[in-house]
């Protein structure tokens, strides 16, 4: 089983004619993702990797019965591209694009509250149900089908933890990279809720990092609402206050919130063991199973 995506998910790739769009369409199809269309304004009628391209997402959804999209559109146009997918309408939109202006995302976030579409990202590696479908740029070969759900704010850290799990035979139901931007669609709590309600997910890994208070809020949610055991990892213990470490969100204000320590404490208080190393996270998950 899985959450959000499976082998039946019919995918439109927005920006399929660009370099990234084309390459990852090929990668996704190789993995088994059911890519049914591309959408690029002005490129309707073309084909990429044997997939028909439409001028609008709405046409693509109508003609090819698509229900999800992956956005590989450059940052200046990506906010608009997400709007287009919400209005098509699709059930699921995965925005890979990094660097979308925050005010554009604020408007998208407002629109999300008015529609039934779920957004993952932006600035994320995407979502994968191992052996069935991946929407995004995650390296499929490190994943394996199994019992563990994974949600993470960081792409490459996701790969690291999955590698630690897979290498000892622990597979995954679905892994969701929610992205590290200040404003995102699906957050930790949304993802944890999906995993809690998925009968096949026996344990969950949650990977967070410094900045913001999302992990602290997720810890409260876990304590109050979850029976499925969760193990955590928090990146950025050694980050100096006030310095921005790559991600927009990865900054510690020095005021005591958003630090690795406050996140780890909140998770521990919620009964979530936090690994000192990614390998220790896998140890905790092994104990749960």
């Amino acid at each position, binding site marked *: 089983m899985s959450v959000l995506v499976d082998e039946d998910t019919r995918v439109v790739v927005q920006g399929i004619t660009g370099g*990234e769009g084309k390459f990852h369409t090929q990668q996704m199809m190789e993995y088994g993702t059911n890519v049914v269309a591309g959408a690029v304004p002005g490129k309707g009628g073309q084909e990429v990797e044997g997939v028909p391209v439409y001028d609008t997402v709405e046409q693509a959804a109508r003609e090819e019965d698509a229900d999800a999209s992956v956005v590989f559109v450059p*940052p200046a146009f990506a906010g608009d591209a997400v709007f287009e997918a919400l209005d098509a309408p699709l059930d699921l939109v995965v925005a890979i694009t990094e660097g*979308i*202006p*925050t*005010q*554009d995302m*604020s*408007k998208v*976030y407002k629109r999300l509250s008015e529609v039934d579409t*779920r*957004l993952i990202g932006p600035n994320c590696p995407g979502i994968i149900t191992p052996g069935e479908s991946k929407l995004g*740029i*995650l*390296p499929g070969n490190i994943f394996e089908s199994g019992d563990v759900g994974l949600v993470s704010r*960081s*792409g*490459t*850290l*996701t*790969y*690291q933890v999955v*590698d630690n799990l897979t290498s000892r035979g622990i597979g995954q139901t679905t892994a969701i990279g929610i992205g*590290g931007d*200040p*404003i995102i*669609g699906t*957050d930790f*709590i949304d993802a944890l809720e999906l995993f809690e309600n998925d009968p096949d997910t026996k344990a969950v890994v949650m*990977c967070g*990092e*410094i900045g*913001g*208070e999302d992990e602290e*809020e997720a810890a*409260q*949610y876990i304590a109050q609402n979850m029976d499925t055991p969760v193990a955590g*990892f928090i*990146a950025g*213990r*050694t*980050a*100096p206050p*006030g*310095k*921005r*470490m*790559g*991600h*927009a*969100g*990865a*900054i*510690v*204000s020095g*005021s005591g*919130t958003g630090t690795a320590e406050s996140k780890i404490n909140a998770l521990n208080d919620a009964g979530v063991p936090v690994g000192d*190393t*990614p*390998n220790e996270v896998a140890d905790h998950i092994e104990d749960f199973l």
Partner: protein
Amino acid sequence: MRSRRFGTTNSLSPKVPSESKMKLHEYQAKRVFADAGIPTPASTLASSVDEVVEAAEDIGYPVAVKAQVHVGGRGKAGGIKLADDREEVERAAEDILGMDLKGYTVEEVLVEEAVNFKNELYVGVTMDRGEGKPVAMVSTKGGVNIEEVAEEDPDAIAREHVDPAFGMHPYQARKVVYDAGVPREVASDVASILTTLFELWDDSDASDIEINPVMVTEDDEVVAADAVMNIDDDALFRQPDLAEMEEETFEDDLERKAGEYGFDYVRLDGNTGIIGNGAGLVMTTLDLVDYYGGSPANFLDIGGGAKAERVANALDMVFSDENVDAVVFNIFGGITRGDEVAKGINDALEQFDEIPKRVVVRLAGTNAEEGREILNDELVTVEETLEDAVQRAVEYAEVEA
């Protein structure tokens, strides 16, 4: 999609840590504010003692001399001085120009009319990332460290969330001003300043924008006595006028070099150099260096999809940090390909007759095996796992130190 369940307004402080690197100086922000119709005191930018004196004589005493550097707490650090006459303004200019303010040399000061006031207010707009919405804030406790006010007496700051699609309605500006308890005589002027600030925030892709303090004079005039304006770096492509004001500030030559190479780089004080791809994984590598008893010398994220040249530049950067005794290279390829990284490492190291620091490499993910085959293990130590790579680098760093 729901709104955040556990978000509390109290956790929302003014001056949420700005995530933008693009900050305007006070004099630049004031110019933007004044052009938009917000009253500001008479002022002139000056970069020599003579210019300061001339400006002060033009404006008329008393004046304030204010250092124009991108650091908080200028006043407390001695970067702002009041002067009542020519002698005092000369002394202030001599003291402040050229002074070191938290690592930055003061090259310019703003000479400004000193305003007599009876109240000081705070007015600001920022993005509440928890709500995904802009929020307008007003407080009658202006003129002081507003972050402390937010922490100790959060109710002293009135807040109003704004719909990003509609913008701020006039009633919302009035509401937040009345909620804050702004004196009736100036309420409509302050509401008008707030409305203008919100429009500026919206039009200029600001991440935060604030005036602390708005001074209320004896005659019930309002004046913006300070100005903060930070811009969303990701939106600079559509803010050409503001982008022109961008001034790169680097703490040292290495950070300057990182800017030229386009790396996310932060220098730290340890001796184990760290290069990796993806912020979360690089931070994790730093944490593991610390966990295994070493000390990270830097954060360096080469980003996604790096080609050989970029990898070589990263090594060049870390090698040129004299505190570094050993380097760990940690790549987990998704978009990034292990063979490209390996090629870059070889290219960079083959230039040396003698490699200056020991390099440990860990490659995983896309084309990692191809990469490991390419890597010249006479030049580097290859480790299979993250844990092994970090421990080996920490050992090397200790031996070399």
